[in-house]
């Protein structure tokens, strides 16, 4: 599930509010709120810390760089960005 969401970020560069049950297609045009983006980044970081999943760390870094929706500003990512930098250096 997390890897499929990461693929949406990396390939589609957008996350919608609703998807089909297997996440193969979006069923909504609305993008997820800033709050949910931050939660997802937190989950990606937790997965990295727990499972050393570099792929999810990579996607989290790209979200912080503004890959989603042509770089729409996302509130609340600043704190995450700092811990991401530390994580990458110490990884």
């Amino acid at each position, binding site marked *: 599930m997390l890897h499929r969401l990461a*693929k949406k970020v990396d*390939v589609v560069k957008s996350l919608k509010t609703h998807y089909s049950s297997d996440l193969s297609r979006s069923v909504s045009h609305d993008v997820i709120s800033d709050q949910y983006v931050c939660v997802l980044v937190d989950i990606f970081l937790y997965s990295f810390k727990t499972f050393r999943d*570099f*792929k999810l*760390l990579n996607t989290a870094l790209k979200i912080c760089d503004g890959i989603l929706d042509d770089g729409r500003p996302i509130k609340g990512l600043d704190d995450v960005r700092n811990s991401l930098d530390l994580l*990458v*250096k110490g990884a």
Partner: protein
Amino acid sequence: MLRVIPLTVIVYCEECTVARFYLQYLREAGYIAEKVILLLNSEKPRHLSWAWSLAPRLVIAQLRRFTNLTARAHGELREFIDYVGQKFEVKVNLTKKFAYADYCNDFQIEMVDGFYDEKMRLILERQENKLFLYTCGGLVKKSLLSIPDSKFLHIHPGVVPDVKGSDGFWWSLLLKGTPGASCFYMNSGIDTGDIIMTREYALPNLALKNRFSREVIQRGALVAIDPHIRAMLLVDVVKKYEYNLGKVRTLAQSADEGDYYFHMHASLKNRVIDANWA
């Protein structure tokens, strides 16, 4: 005496680094390709396309080559290429015009409007030997893969199925600590073709971190380091199978095996640089 291997090498753009490495490595191992097809990209640049429509196609292709070669022939990237080049036994010309005709028995030049030009199928269909060595990036269109009696050999920078997708060189170094490559017959999936050989190779000691900027290392690694690994595998494959390259007993991959990776973020590449090239 050089031996002619039954391969038609597809070179997209004269400045293609990977093709240069493949051909140089083959030659130093005592082989030349049966044929090289050089595809010059005469696609109009997207900006000011109306103005470019006045320029002859050959001029556009030559300008593109000149721009790309010039970027490698000067400045820090050139220093990087020269430094890394000293560390490997096989020396490859990456900064000047390349004499493709010296690396094959038969040489053909064609002009195309980008790699997805419909003309590509016609060009490849007409080849006598349809065992192609694909040297470009990206996906091959199904219309090309379905050319009757054709096979496309590809060397992917990463050991499949563990490392499929983009930036295989960087992901291999991050996840396994050593670069690897895979040779397979391409199919319509991304790096899912039937495997001919996979291998990992040790890199020479490269003290890059204090010599070059991170931007140049990130850019230069794909120009001057990664193609060595892929070319080494190509030579190993050719030495093993020689004239039977088109009918190797392969190992099929299952689609859900292994993992796909996307472009690596610069911060993770920097981590690889710190860990490997201090």
